[in-house]
């Protein structure tokens, strides 16, 4: 019986359910505590500092021989900013670490941090991207010519020619405000100093232990063997833990320098002020449509506020450049002229957050489609049907190649599931009663499983992408699978075990997945960008195939049969078509302890490695939201949310659905609830969960999920990635639904989150205009 495809319960769960599992803060026992003195303002020169007598306080001046974070993108238009681990003579955002304090407990460390006085001379801050682009704006980084720190243009050269023949042009200005990924577990790092080995083990809440080790060793001029990085259980990350935090490097430096074990557990306020933010985009786009309502050309000017510093390894080019390359989404047109810019400001640095730019670019394309549909008198399903890609492989106007998907089929299935026609009737009846219901569609592609072929065109100094898996069967017959990916809630231990179990004909209990430990797992890039099941899963399947061959070879020696005639199932190796067989665990003994019985050229032991580095594969989906807008309060209630997803082969359907539902809820949050707010002085006004608003169980409807399964040969497991899709598609579905509900008032929502205040303002203005 195949385990792949079965909704088995997760192997990860018993330890999590009983409180046994160790998260970063659970590993701090016996360590001294670190707290950071942080900048209370957005921009200032550091004039001086007074520290309490006898306190253990470390500043940039103490960090001798330490480099600065300087992520590199090899592009002529990329500005290489240098971020010191602790602010040197200038602070560039509120929350920037200035000094590290050590005390026996966090309580006392905060007492000391409170007593440190930093003398700051304020300078005029740059906060919002609109202001940052004006001629009179101060420039955040010395040496930069402007606040544009990265930019790009894609121009197919034919936009003007093509758009002359357009019968409709749809132009829109869109804003997506700033978000925080806000994992429930904040960041944290525990550095344990081993006196005997003179080696530090850094336990860190991270998505990328190997890359973190490389980054810290580069900064501290260390050999990687002198630092072990371990990711314990990680309490959510969503991208906020995929880049290098300055604080983690400081903890390692302090631990080595002082030969002490130290812990820094970020608190929620720090998480809001100082842990990577995301989004904060403003787009202008204009689509030209021909007489058949087909999009023929697209122009755009995309601006991303990328904060004070570039993030390692993906850099502050990741948001604007991805937006530029992937804006076309699932639509078929070949005429494109888009400029994208990343703008530096005196705000918290940014890191990719689930979906990266795609929630915003999907919003832009899907808003445009709905507005075009209105102009042409078409319904939202028909206009998309006319414009979606249907031939595969498809080469987009920006040069990206899409493998086979089910774009039109997902749309049509979704329309059928929500019964679009009967909704329109219900909507009309409700409007007669003074109620405002709306429906919103969102069709999108999710590029997943980016290997180095997908990352290489970005010209990063560090090109991520492949994954390696090392697998060995021990003499007891157990299989250890060491992976470079670093799962933290995705259930990868379970799904990879399913893959291995099927390949080797072993029960799940024989399999151990080892991850998140640089001393125990092969170099890998960690878990982000909907990559793990595709890439690490692919490498796992390849390695398991090789291990199966190795086991079959030993079985062939013992059973005196050709290895290709050996079949592994239910813990046994049997010769096909016979009843001759042997327990696999017995073969393991032979492979280690009875090598003289084996063929003379047989290597002792049972092990296999594999790497996998795919070009990527596209998932696709259609989301539909049905909402009711309370026009008096501007409140939005979600009545229904439907997802038709195509993520290829489903290894574990329940885990897949969990990823989708969780992603959708973060997308709904993006659309309606969550916003990091800075005032004009660069003060952050959302430092509590009273003010930054992740939705609760009461705001969220059940998410209805349906599947299509297009099997791709772009992924060796047949699985496509899907970790981000929910977050990518949901905002557009919700915002389109709100706009649809308010159509009688002539309201188009172009800003998210669409808060009640903003919705009311639009309604007030619309009513004023009609009056």
């Amino acid at each position: 019986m195949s385990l792949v495809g079965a909704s088995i319960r997760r192997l990860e769960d018993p330890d999590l359910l009983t409180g046994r599992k160790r998260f970063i803060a659970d590993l701090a026992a016996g360590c001294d505590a670190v707290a950071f003195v942080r900048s209370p303002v957005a921009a200032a020169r550091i004039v001086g500092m007074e520290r309490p007598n006898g306190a253990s306080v470390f500043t940039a001046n103490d960090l001798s021989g330490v480099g600065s974070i300087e992520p590199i993108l090899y592009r002529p238009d990329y500005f290489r900013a240098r971020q010191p681990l602790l602010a040197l003579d200038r602070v560039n955002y509120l929350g920037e670490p200035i000094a590290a304090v050590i005390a026996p407990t966090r309580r006392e460390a905060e007492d000391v941090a409170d007593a440190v006085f930093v003398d700051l001379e304020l300078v005029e801050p740059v906060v919002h991207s609109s202001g940052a682009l004006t001629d009179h704006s101060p420039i955040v980084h010395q040496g930069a010519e402007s606040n544009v720190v990265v930019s790009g243009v894609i121009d197919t050269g034919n936009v003007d020619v093509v758009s002359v023949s357009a019968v409709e042009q749809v132009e829109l200005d869109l804003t997506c405000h700033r978000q925080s990924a806000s994992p429930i577990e904040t960041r944290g790092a525990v550095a344990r100093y081993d006196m005997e080995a003179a080696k530090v083990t850094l336990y860190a809440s991270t998505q990328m232990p190997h890359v973190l080790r490389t980054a810290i060793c580069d900064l501290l001029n260390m050999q990687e063997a002198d630092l072990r990085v371990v990711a314990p259980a990680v309490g959510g990350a969503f991208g906020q833990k995929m880049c290098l935090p300055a604080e983690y490097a400081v903890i390692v430096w302090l631990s080595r320098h002082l030969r002490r074990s130290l812990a820094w557990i970020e608190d929620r306020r720090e998480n809001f002020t100082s842990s990577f933010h995301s989004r904060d985009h403003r787009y202008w786009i204009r689509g030209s449509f021909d007489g058949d309502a087909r999009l023929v050309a697209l122009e755009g000017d995309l601006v991303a506020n990328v904060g004070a510093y570039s993030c390692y390894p993906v850099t502050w080019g990741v948001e604007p450049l991805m937006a530029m390359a992937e804006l076309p989404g699932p639509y078929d047109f070949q005429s494109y002229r888009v400029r994208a810019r990343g703008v530096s400001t005196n705000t918290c640095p940014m890191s990719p957050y689930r979906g990266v730019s795609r929630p915003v670019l999907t919003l832009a394309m899907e808003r445009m489609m709905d507005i075009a549909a209105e102009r042409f008198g078409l319904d939202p399903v028909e206009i998309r049907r006319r414009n979606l890609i249907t031939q595969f492989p498809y080469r987009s106007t920006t040069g990206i190649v899409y493998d086979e998907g089910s774009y039109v089929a997902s749309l049509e299935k979704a329309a059928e599931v929500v019964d679009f026609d009967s909704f329109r009737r219900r909507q009309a009846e409700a409007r007669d009663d003074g109620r405002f219901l709306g429906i919103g569609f969102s069709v999108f592609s999710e590029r997943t499983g980016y290997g180095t072929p997908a990352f290489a065109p970005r010209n990063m100094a560090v090109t991520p992408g492949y994954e390696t898996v090392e697998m060995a069967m021990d003499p007891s017959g157990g299989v250890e699978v060491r992976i470079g990916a670093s799962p933290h809630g995705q259930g990868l231990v379970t799904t990879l075990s399913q893959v291995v179990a099927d390949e080797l004909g072993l029960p799940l209990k024989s399999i151990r997945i080892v991850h998140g430990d640089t001393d125990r797992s092969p170099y890998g890039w960690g878990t982000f960008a909907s990559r793990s099941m595709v890439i690490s899963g692919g490498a796992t399947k390849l390695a398991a195939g090789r291990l199966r061959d190795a086991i079959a070879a030993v079985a062939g020696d013992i059973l005196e049969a050709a290895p290709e005639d050996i079949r592994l199932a239910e813990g046994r190796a049997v010769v096909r078509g016979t009843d001759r067989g042997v327990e696999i665990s017995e073969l393991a003994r032979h492979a280690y302890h009875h090598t003289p019985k084996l063929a003379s050229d047989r290597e002792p032991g049972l092990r296999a490695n594999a790497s996998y580095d795919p070009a990527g594969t596209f998932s696709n989906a259609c989301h539909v939201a049905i909402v009711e807008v309370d026009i008096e309060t501007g409140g939005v209630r979600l009545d229904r949310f439907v997802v038709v997803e195509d993520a290829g082969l489903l290894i574990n359907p329940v885990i897949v659905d969990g990823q989708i539902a969780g992603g959708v809820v973060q997308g709904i949050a993006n659309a309606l609830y969550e916003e990091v707010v800075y005032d004009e002085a660069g003060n952050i006004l959302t430092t509590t969960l009273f003010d930054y608003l992740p939705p609760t169980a009461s705001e969220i409807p059940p998410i209805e999920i349906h599947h299509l399964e297009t099997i791709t040969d772009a992924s060796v497991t047949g699985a496509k990635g899907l970790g981000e899709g929910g977050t990518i598609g949901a905002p557009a579905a919700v915002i389109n639904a709100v706009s649809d509900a308010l159509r009688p008032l002539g309201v188009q929502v172009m800003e998210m989150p669409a808060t009640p205040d903003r919705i009311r303002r639009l309604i007030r203005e619309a009513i004023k205009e009609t009056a």
Partner: protein
Amino acid sequence: MSSLRAVTLSVNGVECKVEVEPRKTLADTLREDCGLTGTHLGCEHGVCGACTILIDGSPVRSCLLFAVQCEGVAIETVEGLASDGQLHPLQQAFWDHHGLQCGFCTPGFLMLAKGALAENPDLTGDALREVLSSNLCRCTGYQNIVTAVEDAAARMRS
């Protein structure tokens, strides 16, 4: 610094004698002094609910209580849910229904649900969602948590 106070806590039916500063929260005390790290801290201002435990059977935020306040009350944490290696019906239902992903918020949800079901064993639907809205989960999208609690409630009633 203020002096240490001796406090005897009753946690999961076991006495835990600690010496703490008055300012030490119950959550920190459980984690650092009682060695019970299953109670997690996510916000330390009473919103996320990761630190939810039971006091005399009712759910409370352990980040908003000081250990010095808690002598003489019965404290229950996630570590006390399973007995003799048997998962509590809530734990079993969360497992069966994929009610957790990263698992960080899970102990808080389990304790919240236990306290709420003790008071109203029939909690379901919107009323249940309203109770569960006390705590934040960033991974699951909530539906599987709702389903798990409903299923556990049914198991516990029968």
